[in-house]
């Protein structure tokens, strides 16, 4: 049986597609880079990753311009059919701007770019995205962002991950990652693709990529 194909989207300014593709491979998937002007997902792709970076230079608002490109139409149809979508950092911002996830990512309260390893607490253990971990279990995943403060009504989503301890960026309820109510679209500011290899100190991020293949 051939490996599951996973579309890894690329926009002008996407940075983390190579790491995201390696993470897809690490869990046994077959990543396919997908151009932002394409109107359909690649043949046979059964899941989507929107990697991090600074699409369109973060002009207007982070993710705003990328969320209006043709490929997002295909992602919306895929999500409406129950297909899984994982948005990381700028990918999370794109999902919020597209309306696939509620809320919006605002500048960090400190107005500083923050880059460090973080402990994330599983808030909702009932989604596919945290590998069966129990509520309160911790995943070690790094984050690196300037606009990571999620703002919105948590009741419109399922809160999957929260920052443990101090709130690093001013996010409502210390939210680090959410899904839509159906649970098939996941967005988070931390970078699970950088926590998939023991050399990087943590493999906790693999659970999010494994969920794409389930």
């Amino acid at each position, binding site marked *: 049986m051939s490996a599951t194909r996973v579309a890894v989207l690329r926009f002008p300014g996407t940075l983390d597609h190579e790491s995201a593709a390696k993470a897809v491979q690490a869990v046994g998937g077959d990543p396919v880079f997908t151009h932002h002007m394409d109107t359909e997902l690649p043949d046979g792709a059964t899941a989507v990753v929107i990697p991090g970076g600074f699409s369109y230079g973060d002009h*207007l608002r982070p993710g*705003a311009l990328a969320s*209006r490109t043709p490929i997002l139409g295909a992602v919306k149809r895929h999500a409406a059919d129950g297909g899984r979508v994982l948005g990381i950092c700028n990918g999370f911002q794109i999902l919020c701007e597209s309306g696939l996830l509620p809320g*919006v990512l*605002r500048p960090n*309260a400190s*107005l500083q770019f923050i880059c460090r390893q973080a402990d994330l607490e599983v808030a909702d253990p009932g989604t596919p995205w945290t590998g069966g971990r129990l509520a309160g279990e911790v995943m070690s995943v790094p984050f690196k962002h300037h606009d990571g403060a999620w*703002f919105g009504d948590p009741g419109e989503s399922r809160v999957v991950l929260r920052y443990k301890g101090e709130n690093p960026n*001013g996010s409502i309820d210390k939210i680090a990652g959410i899904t839509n109510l159906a649970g098939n679209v996941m967005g988070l500011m931390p970078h699970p693709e950088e926590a998939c290899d023991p050399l990087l100190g943590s493999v906790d991020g693999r659970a999010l990529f494994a969920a794409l293949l389930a």
Partner: protein
Amino acid sequence: MTLVIVTVMPKKGVLDPQGQAVQGALSHMGFADIGDVRVGKRIELEINGHDPAAQADKMCQDLLANQLIEDYSVEVQG
């Protein structure tokens, strides 16, 4: 060709860290009378065709403003 000015501002009640940072700097510089500061953006649109104000309003709703956190106003300059 009609020039339309769109102003996008952070909603009242939504934390504006950029405005706060500018306020802090002005205060440190000795501008003792400075009160609240809010930072937004001005977008100049040249629009052809019918009802530029309505077209600009649609552009604001569809892209230029995120109404969860931002208010906008449209001014036709003629």
